């Protein structure tokens, strides 16, 4: 029995938002988005994610880029 796995371009946007906007090193530059700004983006996008009936997939958004990965097979 194999566990369902989502790799790369099949990852759900919600899983990415929980990481890229909530985790990782916060590095402050002069023009870095404030934490409050990041929170706002997060909330806005979570509303978007929750409004979908199925999970949003990267594939649809990055079809052109995905072809760069691997050998295309």
């Amino acid at each position: 029995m194999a566990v369902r796995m989502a790799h790369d371009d099949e990852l759900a946007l919600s899983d990415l938002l929980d990481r890229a906007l909530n985790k990782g090193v916060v590095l402050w530059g002069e023009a870095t988005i404030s934490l409050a700004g990041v929170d706002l983006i997060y909330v806005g996008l979570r509303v978007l994610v929750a409004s979908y009936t199925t999970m949003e997939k990267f594939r649809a958004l990055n079809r052109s880029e995905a072809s760069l990965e691997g050998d295309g097979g």
Partner: protein
Amino acid sequence: MMQLESDETGHMSVGVQRVYVYGIIRLEEGGDGSSLPPISGLAGNPIRTVASNGLAAIVSALATPATGLRFEEELKSPERARSLILDHHHVLRRTIDDRTVLPVRFGALFPDDMSVADALGEHHRDLVEALERVDGAREWGVKIFCDRSVLSRHLSEESPAICAIRGELSAATDGRAFFLRRRIARLGEEEAQHVIEQHVDSVKHSLCAASRGESAMKLQPAAVHGRADEMVWNGALLVDRQAERHFLTLVDDLLEVHAPRGFDYEITGPWPPFSFADCRLGGRENGCSNGT
């Protein structure tokens, strides 16, 4: 301390090239970071490195209006924000196959290379320590789902307490039977909850034994995960590159054992070690958690 220029003047026709930071790597002995894959980042600009004292930031140019505040304005459009966050992820995703990358939270924008190098220098010790914590490992997401109806059915057959009440049921009067059925239902729910909690603990324990660390993530509601069953745990595991196959096989094996009781798992990854790189550098809340 730098002061952000406020621009309510509206004279912003000329854009400014800024430097967007994706992640931080350690430079190989004598290396210059030029071994990065030839990929583009935000807005299609090629990625490159800015090096400082053994570390390097993976960056690309980003044209913005003359103040950083405008970058935040731009991100108020969810479609625009989503597209840029995906660009951020794709750069990190394609660089973690060959090296350890400390992922930077989305939105780190600097005026120029010099200020990026300064930030690397200023936080050198914290960054080196954070890199060491994730060295040679990648993050994998594991979610546990439970179909409570399957679990309850399973429990109603194996729980001694519930079986005992069911034994009473056949000889009970109507009124008593009603009462007993309600007790069975309530006991079933309580036992299901207990079994779920035990299950989550035991799976976490097994996963931790096969990884370097665990970090809990927010449970997602059904509207987000889109499944009929319920998410009962959402976590991130930091797994050594060499142990990835073992780790994934372990999750398969766990599913084999627990699927009949209504449990299911989902794995996502590999991710850059976002959940194990929680550090705030240069802000008011300066410092890194040690990941415990």
